[in-house]
């Protein structure tokens, strides 16, 4: 169980997260939604230890994560596939995948885990010697997820997997996400594409300029006009603190 309480994160003078609290139970798929600049990526970066919160707590199974080195957080099994994929363009697909396994305690099952990833994403096996930068957007997203999977995540955090991808590819990716979810992987999904995200989620949390505006089960949020209002009012030019 991952629990965030009263999380505050600032980038210099910009107060990006203002007292964010949320919970993620084992096996759940929770979506973190919200318009641009709401603080979704910041939340993931805080959990991963890249960004230090100024106050608040991030606890996993009772262990306080805030202030830990990113390495240790990866060792605890909390893995992020970041926004924009951020695969290593100059490394081959195979090398990229290998980097996912850097912190793993048991290296011996790497080969079989690699087979599983290839079974999930056959295109990666086909292109394994190619440089990561030569892959298409969708393929890079698969690579990013595959790389994260090889770290044997207990919690998998995906930041905007649908970003910049064609609808057909998005459908594929979400099918994979759904598949992982049904296999019991705990997932924290950040998405701008609210519709697709809500469809696969158990629960959703809606962020608006750094605070939790709304949260609830898929059923509760599906018809909620508040969701629309938050997305649209932002689009009409609300205060702009770009702090995603």
């Amino acid at each position, binding site marked *: 169980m991952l629990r965030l309480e009263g999380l505050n994160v600032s980038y210099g003078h910009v107060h990006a997260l203002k007292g964010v609290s949320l919970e993620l139970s084992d096996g759940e798929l929770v979506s973190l939604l919200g318009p641009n600049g709401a603080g979704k990526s910041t939340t993931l970066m805080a959990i*991963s230890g*890249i960004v230090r919160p100024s106050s608040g707590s991030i606890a996993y199974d009772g262990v306080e994560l805030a202030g830990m080195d*990113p*390495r240790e*957080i*990866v*060792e605890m099994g909390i*893995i*992020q596939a*970041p926004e924009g994929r*951020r*695969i*290593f*363009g*100059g*490394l081959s697909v195979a*090398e*990229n995948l*290998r*980097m*996912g396994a*850097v*912190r793993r305690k048991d290296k011996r099952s790497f080969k079989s885990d690699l087979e599983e990833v290839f079974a999930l994403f056959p295109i990666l096996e086909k292109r394994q010697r190619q440089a990561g930068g030569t892959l298409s957007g969708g393929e890079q997203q698969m690579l990013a997820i595959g*790389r994260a999977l090889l*770290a044997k995540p207990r919690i998998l955090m995906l930041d905007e997997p649908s970003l910049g991808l064609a609808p057909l590819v998005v459908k594929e990716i979400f099918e994979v996400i759904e598949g992982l979810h049904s296999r019991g992987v705990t997932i924290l999904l950040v998405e701008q594409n609210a519709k697709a995200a809500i469809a696969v989620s158990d629960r959703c949390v809606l962020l608006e300029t750094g605070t939790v505006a709304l949260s609830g089960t898929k059923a509760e949020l599906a018809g909620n006009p508040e969701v629309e209002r938050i997305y649209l009012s932002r689009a009409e030019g609300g205060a702009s603190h770009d702090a995603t």
Partner: protein
Amino acid sequence: MTQLEYLLQQLINAVSMGSLYALMAIGLAMVFGILRLINFAHGDLIMVGSYGVLLLNAAGLPFIAAAAAGAALSGVAGLLMERLAYRPIRGAGDVAMLLNSFAVTILLENLGIVIFTAKSRPFPSPEAFNAVVELGAVRVSSLSLISIATTVILLVLLTIFVTKTEIGISLRATAQDLVAARLMGIDVNKVIAAAFLIGSCLAGVVGVLWSARIGKVDPLMGFQPVLKAFVASVVGGLGSIPGAVLGGYILGIIEVLLQGLLPSSLAPFRDAFVFALLIVLLLFRPNGIMGGRDKEKI
């Protein structure tokens, strides 16, 4: 000696000098790739290696062992440099890094002057280095061939390291995207230390070969080589290891070409021409040969 043989002789010269430049430029590239640090003090690592060899050899160690130890000493010096001067300012921005490296080089050069005085000392290169090898009518110094051979061996080892070992691949990954590397749990401190260690050991090797070539050691000896290394690195594209190698050999060839082509009245201006050509290159390829035409994306 025919035209062809003369060309061959000059080519071997160019390649042997280019080898040294390449080895130095690699050290700069590795460190810049990850930290965006322009390490002026890299030249002083050359000096450290040379003095190491000098002292150890004088203490009785046979030359080859002293050379290896000298290179190792450079490696340690590089690690210390990273730990004391550069790690504390990680994240402070490119300018701070550059300034610190400037300060470190002034510090090391003058420390060398304080300890050893500015006077140069003769370098104890073994006879084998000074022999002249004859390949037909072509005469080359054995040092040239040794330089080339050493570089090739080291390049092969380095390639194996960065493509087959986990830390080597991590190094390339970190140079490409530091945040993504941290997200994967890569130990960035360890990777940076490895980059410094390897680059500095390479500098130490260059120290041995360079001192053997000029026959002496002095505290300011690293200055000229590091300037050349910068040119090589920039030509190839800062941060790129293959670029550094390419740049090194291109520089070696251009220097020899200019030597041959410039009229004798302009010969002393050779270095000015080299740097001028560098500026012209940057006009067309602002990020070096292997860097793109575009500026950095957001």
